[in-house]
């Protein structure tokens, strides 16, 4: 540490400011410590292994397909989150950074969970990138890594908003949350893979907290950046909704008939409902103060 650092750095937690437990990220942090501590190694896949053996070839293929989308998606969000954490830390937002450490830890657990399923249940060690179509590649091979890595050279509010829209609203909101909702419902309806059902329940709970943070972050940026920033968010969402919806329709186009009674309608209705509620909350931030946002963001 240089002499200059010694004179400019101040520590929040040894100042009268302390920690603000009323901030939404702090409420999320407390929840993460209570309910986000599940261990992927504790999931019992013994019945899943039996169930997998009884599935038809097309049923196994569709589950492998879905798992490959989830697996690479979770790896991508794990690899790509760090630049956002660094930006938030550099801005001195300690409470947000504290939650983001749990956020990243949880994403890493999701990676481990799906790889365990592939190794122990599906026993598949092939290259599953064959399931990654053009729309999936647009989102996970290009747009997400680019938007997140840009933060290493551009930490402006606009760049943060672009990153959060891509990561939270599109990847986690439209794709992961919708995928896990429908995946869990399908497994439960068919009474199969109880270990994976339990794991996906944990994933849904984790993702809900991540999305709540994304709504908070974007609302804060909009409250501070006004209409100009909102317009950029809208444009970014419009640009990514096509490939995001395409990921879902590509999956459905791959099977005829679709195994397990999966229905596109179920995916799109859930995705639309969730997207609408979040986007309306973020848009309202154009006319809200930070204090009002802290009161209204739901710490799920």
């Amino acid at each position, binding site marked *: 540490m240089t002499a200059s650092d010694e004179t400019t750095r101040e520590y929040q937690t040894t100042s009268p400011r302390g920690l603000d437990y009323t901030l939404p990220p702090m409420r999320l942090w407390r929840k993460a410590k209570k309910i986000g501590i599940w261990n992927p190694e504790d999931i019992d896949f013994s019945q899943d292994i039996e169930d997998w053996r009884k599935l038809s070839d097309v049923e196994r293929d569709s589950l492998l397909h879905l798992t490959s989308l989830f697996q690479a998606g979770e790896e991508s969000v794990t690899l790509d989150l760090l630049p956002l954490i660094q930006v938030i830390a550099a801005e001195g937002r300690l409470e947000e950074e504290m939650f983001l450490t749990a956020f990243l830890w949880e994403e890493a657990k999701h990676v481990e969970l799906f790889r365990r399923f592939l190794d122990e249940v599906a026993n598949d060690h092939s290259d599953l990138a064959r399931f990654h179509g053009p729309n999936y590649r647009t989102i996970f091979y290009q747009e997400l890594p680019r938007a997140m890595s840009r933060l290493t050279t551009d930490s402006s509010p606009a760049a943060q908003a672009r990153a959060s829209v891509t990561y939270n609203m599109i990847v986690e909101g439209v794709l992961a949350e919708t995928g896990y909702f429908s995946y869990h419902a399908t497994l439960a309806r068919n009474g199969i893979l109880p270990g994976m059902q339990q794991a996906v329940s944990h994933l849904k709970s984790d993702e809900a907290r991540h999305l709540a943070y994304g709504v908070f972050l974007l609302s804060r940026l909009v409250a501070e950046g006004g209409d100009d920033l909102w317009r950029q968010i*809208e444009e970014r*969402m*419009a640009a990514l*909704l*096509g490939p995001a*919806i*395409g990921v*879902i*329709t590509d999956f459905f186009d791959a099977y005829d008939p679709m195994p397990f009674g999966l*229905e*596109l*309608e179920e*995916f*799109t*209705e859930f*995705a*639309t409902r969730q*997207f*609408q509620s979040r*986007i*309306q909350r973020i*848009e309202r931030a154009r006319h809200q103060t930070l204090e009002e946002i802290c009161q209204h963001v739901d710490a799920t």
Partner: protein
Amino acid sequence: MSHEVFTDTWAEVWAEELAASTPYREAATKWEGSLALVLTADTVTSERAVFIDLWHGQCRMARSASREDLEQADFLIRSDLATWKRVLDNDLDPMFGLMSGKLQLTRGSLAKLTPYLTASRELVKAAARVDSIFPDETP
């Protein structure tokens, strides 16, 4: 020449724009079905709507919507004047409009529209090329 939105003449010009649009024809080769766009009433205007019947890249019919048209349209999208202005100014992406609830899909499902995302965007682009005048802009 300007045409008041969602009138018969406006619909005819929209149909001409669609017929001239290669990107639309290419994107809509599998589209089968009709669409009604409804401008909801407010203090400035009464409710009005336009009906368009689309079939494999061709526009078979475009007119100001009758009550029967509204009852039989496969897809019905409703919104207010400010939102339609944004759509027809190419300022609001139709898929974002539908997902965000700014455009309300009151008949038909998003699942049935999603395979035609590119065609939907070309439909809107063609409509945006019509020299439009809105009810609150008429002399």
